[in-house]
């Protein structure tokens, strides 16, 4: 039974800020950077010598964790002003909210006094998504939208063509024709793994383009509306009938494996997937893919907008050094170093317009560079949603409660994908959660 006390204790110690962890970086000038362990970030870690040589006396220490764990740790640390990290990796979900909470350092003064750090070079929608009251509170490392990858060779073999701007209805029909259980190839791969950053990201874009919304402008939860039901039924049926095996626990990386191993004919997901699809080191389908815009239904566009970026907690100790590092990792020169060291496929995409002017990159990314840019440009709430909503965000609801609400809704969704409950049951339960959240906002207004 003491173990339970320990469990509760451990949880709380974790939440209230791991007071001990900060001590590691205390001696001298060591920057502690909390970072998400995605491939592009690993490349940055591998290049840390470049920074340390250019800045003698400053050492870098990376705390690199998978997305969910990194997010939990970074959120807990920043919210409690724990001060363990000098630089944290956050997204456009956190940046504006945390800026409003006063948890992040305003980076505009730092940017303005850094000649050559061309902020006009950032893609506008990405820059705006990290801004609060006209100032940038995080600098983007890579940016993404979502699009549809498809296997040109399989389409050709089946005598099918991918329309340049497909609708979800068309995609569902194509998936039905391409589904080939005997060959071990599913029609499409769509995430079903629970998590607001997993299955709910692609699902929310489908919901948006079907005309659904999480809340109306008075914060009434709308998860049982006819549009939401239509979107959820469409998504669940598509995955259940022509999706990957094990769909209810498949996330971004599982679909990535399925696609690069040739086990699925289409894959709708983040634009960064293209780098892995075309990487000869791990992919069996290099050069066989076409990329088209995120499928739509009632809107002109439906891709999401997301960016992993670097922010500085207000309580960070070495702010000048921290800025030097943030500048290094998000500057034009960094793009060049990655391209020359690791190959141009691995350059962080979707952030700087200048990246798309590099001839080597244009060549390496010919298949997907333009669709990526188009997706990011088109990703805003005017084009990706039918009704106006009171929250920012496309594939997420930009309120703090969404981490929790989204995860709970996604659990219900994946239970429906697994066939354990009906879509209606899943949505009825989700609606209850959403109503509680919506009520707290109605009181506040």
């Amino acid at each position: 039974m003491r173990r339970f006390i320990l469990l509760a204790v451990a949880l709380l110690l974790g939440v209230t800020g791991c007071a001990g962890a900060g001590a590691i970086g205390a001696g001298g000038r060591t920057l502690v950077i909390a970072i998400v362990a995605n491939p592009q970030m690993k490349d940055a870690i591998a290049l840390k010598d470049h920074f340390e040589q250019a800045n003698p006396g400053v050492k870098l220490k990376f705390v690199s964790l998978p997305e969910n764990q990194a997010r939990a740790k970074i959120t807990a640390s920043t919210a409690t002003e724990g001060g363990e990290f000098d630089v944290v990796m956050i997204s456009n979900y956190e940046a504006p909210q945390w800026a409003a909470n006063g948890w992040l350092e305003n980076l505009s003064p730092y940017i303005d006094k850094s000649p050559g750090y061309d902020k006009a070079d950032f893609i506008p929608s990405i820059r705006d998504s990290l801004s609060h009251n006209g100032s940038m509170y995080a600098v983007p490392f890579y940016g993404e939208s979502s699009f549809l990858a498809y296997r040109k060779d399989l389409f050709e073999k089946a005598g099918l063509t991918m329309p340049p701007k497909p609708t979800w209805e068309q995609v569902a029909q194509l998936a039905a024709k391409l589904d080939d259980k005997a060959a071990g190839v599913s029609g499409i791969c769509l995430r079903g793994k629970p998590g607001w950053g997993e299955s709910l990201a692609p699902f929310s874009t489908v919901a948006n383009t079907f005309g659904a919304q999480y809340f109306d402008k008075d914060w009434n939860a709308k998860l049982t509306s006819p549009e939401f039901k239509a979107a959820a039924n469409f998504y669940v049926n598509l995955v259940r009938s022509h999706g990957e095996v094990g769909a209810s626990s498949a996330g971004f990386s599982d679909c990535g494996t399925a696609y690069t191993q040739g086990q699925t004919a289409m894959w709708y997901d983040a634009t960064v997937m293209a780098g892995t699809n075309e990487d000869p080191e791990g992919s069996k389908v290099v050069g066989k893919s076409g990329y088209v815009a995120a499928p739509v239904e009632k809107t002109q566009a439906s891709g999401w907008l997301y960016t992993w970026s670097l922010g500085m907690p207000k309580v960070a100790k070495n702010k000048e050094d921290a800025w030097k590092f943030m500048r290094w990792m998000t500057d034009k020169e960094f793009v060049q170093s990655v391209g020359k060291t690791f190959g141009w496929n691995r350059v962080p995409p979707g952030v700087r317009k200048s990246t798309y002017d590099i001839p080597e990159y244009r060549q390496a990314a010919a298949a997907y560079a333009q669709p990526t840019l188009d997706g990011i440009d088109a990703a805003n709430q005017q084009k990706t949603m039918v009704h106006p909503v009171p929250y920012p965000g496309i594939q997420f609801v930009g309120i703090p409660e969404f981490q929790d609400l989204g995860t709970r809704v996604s659990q219900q969704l994946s239970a429906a994908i697994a066939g354990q409950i009906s879509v209606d049951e899943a949505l009825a339960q989700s609606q209850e959660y959403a109503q509680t959240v919506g009520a707290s906002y109605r009181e506040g207004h």
Partner: protein
Amino acid sequence: MSTLSAPARSAPSKTSTGKAAKPRTSGSWKRRLPLMPALIFTIAVTQLPFLLTVFYSFQSWNLVRPGSRHFVGFGNYLDVFADSQFRGAMLNTVVLTIVCVFISLVLGLAFALLLDRKFLGRGVVRTLLITPFLILPAAGALLWKTTMFHPRFGLLNFVFGGDTDWLSAFPLASVMAQIIWQWTPFMMLLILAGLQSQPKEVLEAASVDGAGRVRTFTAITLPHLSRYLQLATLLGAIYIVNSFDAIFLMTQGGPGTASTNLPYYIYQRAFEGFDIGQSSAMGVIVVILTMIVATFALRLMFRTFAVSGGVK
């Protein structure tokens, strides 16, 4: 590490200090002084945070909404009991613990009986049977997720055919299979120790009296083993009730909440919901419930201990 040593430390201290402390009360502080740092450390590390947890459980506090912190009395507790997911998680915990302990105990007994005989290569077989317990729980969970249950790469589908997605079709059963696999060796070791401590003369006497194998087993071996079985049950239950690795890595509590148990649910409330007040309240409730169950279990155990001790 602390989680491993904690139950082991606390269990004997309850029984021994009560008897041992009395004659020593007159003893000097000199003897106790060296123990004080350890005692203070233990209190600081276990009891103070628990008191803090109780304190937090009376507050409404969502970490990601600054300014939301205020005192709500027993509000969190009422919310927790009204939460159907919490009740579901509790039910899952009970089912998971009882089934896993029971099946691994039966399997452990069977393996122990086999290993108790002499045969060629017994050492190798014993090592192989113990291995699952030595594998890190996280590694074991991943192993089962990919090499056994995976719909495409898994051994189960390779052997039985079809493309069943075990983890989403039978989430709780799959998790339990992994936990049973992990804990059977532990049960087996404890029971084997019991079997090998069986007095040979008694067994010989039984065979001289003409008792068959079954009779010998039910009349002599099983009563002799009872204390080992009870110990295995208690220790196994203490650990299995806390199962986290398998659920976190194999099913993430899903699909839906089909395989969410209490530790995983509290983790979700604390680290995905950042709801400090509610997760603290759940922690406190779980501690209280476990204490009640453990007290009854311990009392029952000591009673049967006394009986079996008397028989001997």
